[in-house]
């Protein structure tokens, strides 16, 4: 379990181009942060840098209560544009694998399926799901393996209004349980959140 996330003077470059520099943020347990900024300013790169997938140019990312490698291995979820779901496998196979891989149990996977109303879809191949259904399957991973820090990249985009509200409730419950959310968004998050704008 990690107590907080600290970004201290973080800078990231991609392909020789500096995206942003000297970005600082402190996210305590129970807090959410909405990352905003125009296309291409580096919101996704910042999320990937927090997850350790992209190297930092400058500054550091500190997880309170855990060494960075350990926190990245077992305390954070990354939900990006690419959801890592294999089109030819069924929703049940995919959720089953990822939930065990991320340290969840079968019971937690069951309750995630119930919360996201995926029951009737579980035996379908992922390729048969609509964009919104597929996103719900990806969101089910967040619930099926509890990890305190959620890194979300445009989590709302393919969801309809009803599901946006319900996902808002799930995020609120996650925060109430001491979780943290760092989300790159264009539309405002349906929960109270600190705002951090990345300027190009």
């Amino acid at each position, binding site marked *: 379990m990690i107590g907080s996330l600290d970004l201290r003077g973080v800078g990231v470059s991609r392909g020789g181009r500096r995206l942003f520099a000297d970005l600082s943020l402190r996210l305590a347990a129970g807090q959410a942060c909405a990352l905003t900024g125009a296309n291409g300013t580096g919101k996704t790169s910042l999320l*990937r840098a927090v*997850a*350790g*997938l*992209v*190297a930092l140019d400058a500054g550091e990312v500190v997880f309170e209560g855990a060494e960075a490698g350990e926190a*990245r*291995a*077992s305390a*954070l*979820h*990354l939900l*990006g*544009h*690419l*959801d*890592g*779901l*294999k089109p*030819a*496998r069924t929703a049940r*196979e995919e959720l089953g*694998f*990822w939930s*065990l*891989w*991320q*340290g969840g149990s079968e019971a937690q996977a069951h309750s995630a399926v119930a919360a996201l109303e995926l029951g009737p879809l579980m035996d379908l191949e992922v390729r048969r799901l609509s964009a919104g259904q597929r996103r719900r399957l990806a969101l089910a991973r967040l619930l099926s393996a509890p990890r305190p820090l959620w890194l979300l990249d445009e989590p709302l985009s393919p969801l309809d209004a009803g599901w946006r509200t319900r996902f808002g409730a799930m995020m609120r419950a996650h925060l109430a349980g001491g979780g943290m959310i760092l989300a790159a968004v264009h539309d405002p998050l349906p929960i109270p959140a600190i705002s951090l704008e990345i300027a190009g």
Partner: protein
Amino acid sequence: MSRLSVLLARETALAWGRGGGALVSVGFYAGVATLLPLAIGPEAERLAAVASGAAWVALALASLLSLERLFERDYEDGALDLLNLSPLPLELTCAAKCLGQWIATGAPLALAAPIAAIGLGASPALTPLIFACALAGGLAFAFVGGIGAALSLGARRGGLLTAVIVLPLFVPPVIFGGGALDAFAGGLPWKAGFALLGAYAAAAVALGPLAMAAACRNALS
């Protein structure tokens, strides 16, 4: 441990289905083995002389087939990111992927290899050795091939690049295995060739995952 076993089950299932997987590899193998007599000529003596070697080369080519997708799909759809965010070191994850590849395509090919060799006219007495060589060689092909597949991540037409990277590295196992089969068929000592093949496979299993993990990290960042 349970993480490793669910990963291995997933990788084997994916490799089984990847681009037709095992069936296409075996079909390709059978196709090459059928083409050879047409090109070399049907005389039994001439064919028998090259049978085991030809079966062995065809095996190396067939194991190249499904390699290109080994990492590429997970890389393209974001699964490699998530596989990386886990307590299991990326090296072990890569090893599990190659092992899945071996189970799903190497093992069926090893079963097909003696049949193809005998069909070309090799002595049936060679069956156990061909099978053992194909199993050990398949392990080497999967782990060495994985290095090529990981290195060509992100490249356009990565499959072709994989083949160009990997084929030179397939040379030692092809020489060792072919040599052992030839020696056995000629009544000469064959154990050294087989032992070298096993040593090459063991080295590939031990060192391959380090190179694969480094290449994957590089591709992700």
